[in-house]
C-alpha cells in the first residue's frame, strides 16, 4: 500500500447499486470500506461484504443517508479517512462537502465551492459562458425597453424564441414566440404578468429549442491541472425528466463536434479549478449545443462511458481524491464502439408506480459485451423508502447495432419474479424503429408512450 495515501478506509455514504459499485472500486485500489446503512438496508449485499458495517438510523433517509452530522460521526467512530457520496442524497450538497473537509476527512468529489457554483443556475451559466462553453443563444441579460432593439435580438437569435421572466420559474412567466409579428405583444403581456406574479417585470429572451436531444460530456480532473473529457452520452430517452435508457456515443453527432465541446468543457474545469468526475449536460438541436447544468458527481449512467473508454471512472475519482495524478493524456483516450444502458426499475409496467417486494427469482444475463451493475440478489427485498432503481444492464458492441442486439438478447435472458419491472418497456423501446434509427429527442419517449396507451 502506498505510504503517500491520504486515506486507507472509505465510508460509502449511499446505498443500492452505487454503494456496491464504489465498494468494488475501493477494493480494487486496496482500500477498506465502511458501509453505513439504514435499518431498511440491513440485508444489502455491500453491507454484508464491507470491512465495517454500521446501522446509522431508521429507514427515513432524513435520519440516515441524509443525516450530515450522523455521517460525520459514523466516519469518526469507524476510523474512515474519506467519504464517497455516490449520486443523489448528499452528493451535491456543498455544505456537506465543506463539513467533511472541515472534519479533517477527504470528500471524494469537488470542493464545496465548485458544487455551490454549479448548484446555482445563474452563476453556473455565467461561469460557463466566460469559459467559452456554449449556452442557449439569447439576450444574455435583461431585454431593453425599445421594441426595435428587442426585435433585433430576436432576429439575431432566430425564431422561435422564448420570452422569460427573470423572476419566474417552474414553467411560469414564459411565452414562446414564433415570429416577429407576435413579438411586441408577447413581450408586453409577459412583462405585465411577470410584474403581477413576481413583482418584477424584467424579461430575457432565449432561443426556443423545440425538439432537443440531451447530450452530456463526462469529464475527469485531477488536482495537478490535468482535465480530460471522456466523450459524450445521449440520454434523450426520459420520462418525467427521469432518464430511462442511455447510450454512448451520441448517435449521428460527428466526433470532431464532440471533441470541440469536450475541449470547452475541460477548459471551463481548468478555469474554475474543478476536481474529480463531473458531467456537463447540454440540449442539442440543429447542430447547436446549449449548456443546461453541470452535475458535480458520478452519474447513474457512468458505466457506458467506462465501456467506450476503458476507464474506471469511480476508481479515478478515488485516486484523484488521494491526490494522485491522472496518468492519462487526452490523446490516450480512445472512444471506441458503442454502449447502451437500460435502467432496471422495480415498477409497474403500465402505471410506473413503484413495485417494492421480495425478489423470488433473479436470473442475470451474460455473454460478451454484457455488464450488470446491481445490488439485488435472489430473495432481496426491494424497499419502498427509496428510488426504484434495482440495477443497470450495460451492453457494449463494436457498433451501435451490435450493442442493441446484445442488449435485446440480455433483456430476453433476464428473469425477475416477485416484483414488477420495466424490462418489457426496454424491450419495446429497443424494437422501436425511431430509436433504432438513432437521435430521438427528449420528448420522444413520452410521445411514444402516449401513442401506445389504449386510452
Amino acid at each position: 500500500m502506498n505510504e503517500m495515501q491520504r486515506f486507507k478506509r472509505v465510508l460509502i455514504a449511499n446505498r443500492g447499486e452505487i454503494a456496491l459499485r464504489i465498494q468494488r472500486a475501493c477494493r480494487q485500489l486496496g482500500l477498506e470500506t465502511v458501509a453505513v446503512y439504514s435499518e431498511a438496508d440491513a440485508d444489502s449485499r455491500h453491507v454484508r461484504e464491507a470491512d465495517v458495517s454500521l446501522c446509522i438510523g431508521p429507514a427515513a433517509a432524513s435520519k440516515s443517508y441524509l443525516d450530515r452530522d450522523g455521517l460525520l460521526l459514523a466516519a469518526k467512530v469507524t476510523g474512515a479517512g474519506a467519504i464517497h457520496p455516490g449520486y443523489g442524497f448528499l452528493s451535491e450538497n456543498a455544505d456537506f462537502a465543506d463539513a467533511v473537509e472541515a472534519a479533517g476527512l477527504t470528500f471524494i468529489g469537488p470542493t464545496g465551492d465548485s458544487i455551490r457554483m454549479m448548484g446555482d443556475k445563474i452563476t453556473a451559466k455565467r461561469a460557463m459562458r466566460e469559459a467559452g462553453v456554449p449556452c442557449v443563444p439569447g439576450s444574455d441579460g435583461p431585454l431593453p425597453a425599445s421594441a426595435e432593439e428587442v426585435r433585433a435580438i430576436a432576429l439575431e437569435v432566430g425564431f422561435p424564441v422564448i420570452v422569460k421572466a427573470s423572476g419566474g420559474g417552474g414553467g411560469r412567466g414564459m411565452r414562446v414566440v414564433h415570429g416577429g409579428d407576435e413579438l411586441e405583444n408577447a413581450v408586453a403581456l409577459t412583462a405585465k404578468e411577470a410584474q403581477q406574479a413576481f413583482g418584477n417585470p424584467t424579461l430575457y429572451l432565449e432561443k426556443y429549442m423545440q425538439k432537443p436531444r440531451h447530450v452530456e460530456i463526462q469529464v475527469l480532473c485531477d488536482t495537478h491541472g490535468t482535465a480530460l473529457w471522456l466523450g459524450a452520452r445521449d440520454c434523450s430517452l426520459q420520462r418525467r425528466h427521469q432518464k430511462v435508457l442511455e447510450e454512448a456515443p451520441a448517435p449521428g453527432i460527428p466526433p470532431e463536434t464532440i471533441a470541440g465541446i469536450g475541449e470547452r468543457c475541460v477548459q471551463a474545469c481548468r478555469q474554475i479549478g474543478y476536481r474529480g468526475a463531473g458531467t456537463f449536460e447540454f440540449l442539442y438541436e440543429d447542430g447547436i449545443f446549449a449548456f443546461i447544468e453541470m452535475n458535480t458527481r458520478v452519474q447513474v449512467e457512468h458505466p457506458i462511458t467506462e465501456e467506450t473508454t476503458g476507464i474506471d471512472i469511480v476508481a479515478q475519482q478515488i485516486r484523484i481524491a488521494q491526490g494522485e495524478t491522472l496518468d492519462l493524456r487526452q490523446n490516450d483516450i480512445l472512444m471506441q464502439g458503442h454502449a447502451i444502458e437500460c435502467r432496471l426499475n422495480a415498477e409497474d409496467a403500465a402505471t410506473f408506480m413503484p413495485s417494492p417486494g421480495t425478489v423470488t427469482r433473479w436470473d442475470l444475463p451474460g455473454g460478451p459485451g454484457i455488464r450488470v451493475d446491481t445490488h439485488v440478489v435472489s430473495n432481496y427485498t426491494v424497499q419502498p423508502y427509496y428510488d426504484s432503481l434495482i440495477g443497470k444492464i450495460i451492453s457494449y458492441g463494436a457498433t451501435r447495432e451490435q450493442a442493441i442486439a446484445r442488449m435485446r438478447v440480455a433483456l430476453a435472458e433476464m428473469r425477475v419474479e416477485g416484483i414488477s419491472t420495466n424490462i418489457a418497456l426496454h424491450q419495446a423501446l429497443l424494437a422501436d424503429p425511431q430509436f433504432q434509427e438513432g437521435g430521438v429527442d427528449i420528448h420522444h419517449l413520452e410521445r411514444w408512450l402516449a401513442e401506445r396507451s389504449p386510452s
Partner: protein
Amino acid sequence: MNAVENQVPEFEGIPSAEDLARIADLLIEAGLETIELSDGKGARCFMRVTSSVAKSDKQVAENVTPVEDLSSRIAVSAPYFGTLVLTELAKVGTSVQPGDVVAQMRIGALQIPVLVPVTGTIVDVAGEDGALTGYGAPVVQVEPTSR
C-alpha cells in the same frame, strides 16, 4: 448534539411506523399519555399511548406461566450508533426503573444514554461492551414487573 433531539423525529408528513414506536417509547419514558405534532402548513398528528407497562402487565396476568412468556419482555435497543459502553446496571437479574441508564453510546466525547422504559428486571444482555454498535441494535431485555 443533543441526545433527545436525535430521538424525537422531525414531523414531516405521517411518521413512519418505527417513528411512531419511538415517539410512543418517549412518551412512556416521560410519563405522558398524549402528544400532538404539527408543522407550519397546518398538518397535525395526534397520538395517545396506553402505557405499554399496563399492557404487558395485563398480558402477564392473563398468562398461566408468566416467566416463560417472552412476548412480555421489553427489548431496549440502541437509540443511536457508537461504541457501546455498558453500565453496572446491565447485568442479568438487576432490578431497573424507567430512566435507568443501562449503557452509553459513545462517539468521541459524545455520549448518548440507553434508557430503560419500564420497571422490571434485566433478563438478557445482548449488547457487547466496547463493541461498535448500530442504531436499533438490542442492548438488554427487561421483564416488566407485574403489579
